[in-house]
């Protein structure tokens, strides 16, 4: 039982990170129909940026803030320089553009940073907290708490502010959004910026647990994509549930079968979802009433 609980804790921790990445996918997909395969690289920028800024002598909160701002800038540039000029291109073309951008970001990071693995000290020490026979690391609470806070903040923004509703309106009907005077290009930039910020924050809190390196984004992208697909691409609730599920399944596989298969789980889930329930658990995009 305590082993089960232990695995569940670590599953929920990585799941929370995947959920944030999946939410980033969802936000950009809803606003622009783009599946952004550079999503995981925002996580890397958040982690690596904080590591190197702290090494330069900055305090953690300052370093993290600058790293997140840097990721947001990269997100805005990605939209402005790579996505916006290809407006009207097919989804496959747009996906390839984001894959290209991801490779580019990794290349530049290799030069700016280095090729080593890096970690951050845990924010509140390494003393495990005993819970029901198992233990939980304080950093896990940081990860889950950050994820929860971001999900709540995103919900409040989308549901309770006019600009948030403009984002939802743009996702629902771009033509009508333009006709009521919503600056659609600005909404898309906002979606990219927010997704980058969420990814980078996930990277900051996750790095003490997962470590980070210039190319760690690829795996995060694929796990987050699997989570978004499992939940139903375009559905924010699905993204969170999908992220937690992928995290749990992955950890239980590693714990009860073999950690060799850990990373295969996410890919297996993508295949299962595509074959048996292409719309995911929370099948988004209901058919419009005619």
């Amino acid at each position: 039982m305590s082993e089960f609980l232990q695995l569940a804790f670590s599953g929920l921790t990585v799941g929370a990170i995947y959920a944030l990445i999946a939410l980033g996918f969802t936000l950009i997909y809803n606003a622009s129909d783009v599946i952004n395969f550079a999503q995981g690289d925002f996580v890397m920028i958040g982690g690596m940026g904080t590591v190197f800024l702290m090494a330069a002598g900055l305090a953690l909160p300052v370093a993290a803030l600058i790293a997140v701002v840097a990721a947001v800038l990269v997100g805005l540039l990605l939209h402005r320089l790579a996505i916006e000029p290809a407006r009207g291109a097919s989804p496959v073309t747009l996906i390839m553009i984001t894959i290209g951008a991801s490779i580019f970001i990794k290349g530049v990071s290799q030069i700016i940073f280095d090729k080593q693995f890096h970690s951050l000290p845990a924010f509140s020490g390494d003393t495990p907290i005993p819970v029901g026979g198992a233990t939980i690391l304080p950093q896990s609470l940081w990860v889950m708490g950050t994820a929860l806070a971001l999900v709540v903040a995103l919900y409040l923004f989308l549901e309770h502010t006019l600009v948030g509703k403009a984002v939802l309106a743009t996702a629902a009907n771009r033509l009508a959004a333009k006709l009521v005077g919503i600056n659609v290009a600005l909404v898309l930039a906002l979606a990219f910026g927010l997704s980058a910020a969420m990814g980078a924050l996930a990277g900051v809190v996750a790095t003490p647990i997962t470590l980070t390196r210039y190319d760690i984004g690829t795996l995060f992208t694929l796990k987050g994509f699997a989570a978004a697909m499992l939940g139903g691409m375009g559905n924010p609730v699905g993204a969170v549930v999908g992220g937690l599920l992928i995290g749990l399944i992955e950890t239980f596989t590693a714990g009860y079968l073999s950690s060799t298969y850990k990373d295969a789980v996410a890919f297996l889930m993508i295949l299962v979802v595509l074959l048996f329930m292409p719309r995911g658990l929370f099948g988004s995009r209901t058919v419009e009433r005619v």
Partner: protein
Amino acid sequence: MLTVEALSSSYGRIMALREVSLEVKAGEIVALVGSNGAGKTTLLRAISGVQPVRGGRILFEGEAIEKMEPHLRVVRGISQSPEGRQVFGPLSIEDNLKLGAYRRQDARRQARLDHVYGLFPVLAERRRTPAMSLSGGQQQMLAIGRALMAGPKLLLLDEPSLGLAPLLVDQILAAVTSLRTEGITTLLVEQNASAALAIADRGYVLETGHITMEGTGAALLDDPKVRAAYLGL
């Protein structure tokens, strides 16, 4: 108020508008009639800026706007109720209407909301439900109400009567007439040509992308060619 000069627009190689010119004066109701595919919707979309223009000019209150971003045209006072129930499906009716006032968050927003609910009471009854749960006719009312929420100077109405019961058509056209007393100028696109021309000061007939006739609403209603082609008489 609105002057369209030799406006051309195309979908790929297909010319949808060929050198269309028309004018809408302040306080007027102008009807644009024509058969399916004549280019009526394309013209309204070009005026709103959501359809690219190949050539020609669009002047609104003396300012050239043909290259202006769509949201800035809304700021200038041009608001459109598009054809075919283009509502924000997952959002509530009230959110749809509030988004209509996205560029006009002034003190009169609540008054306009009450006005729209007065015009279409069924929207008030269901204000918390998602727009996609409405019937086609109700979505049409919502689209019109949303356009009114912008407090426009020029209202572009694309097929407001499409899919509505005859009683509602009368109600909507009566609403258009009453909007004039509030200082709103209307450019009305309708397949229901007789109803549109009956309330219009002036009208234009659009055929395969160009204007073939123009005149007062009454004159067009009496014109034998218009009667034969569009009124089924």
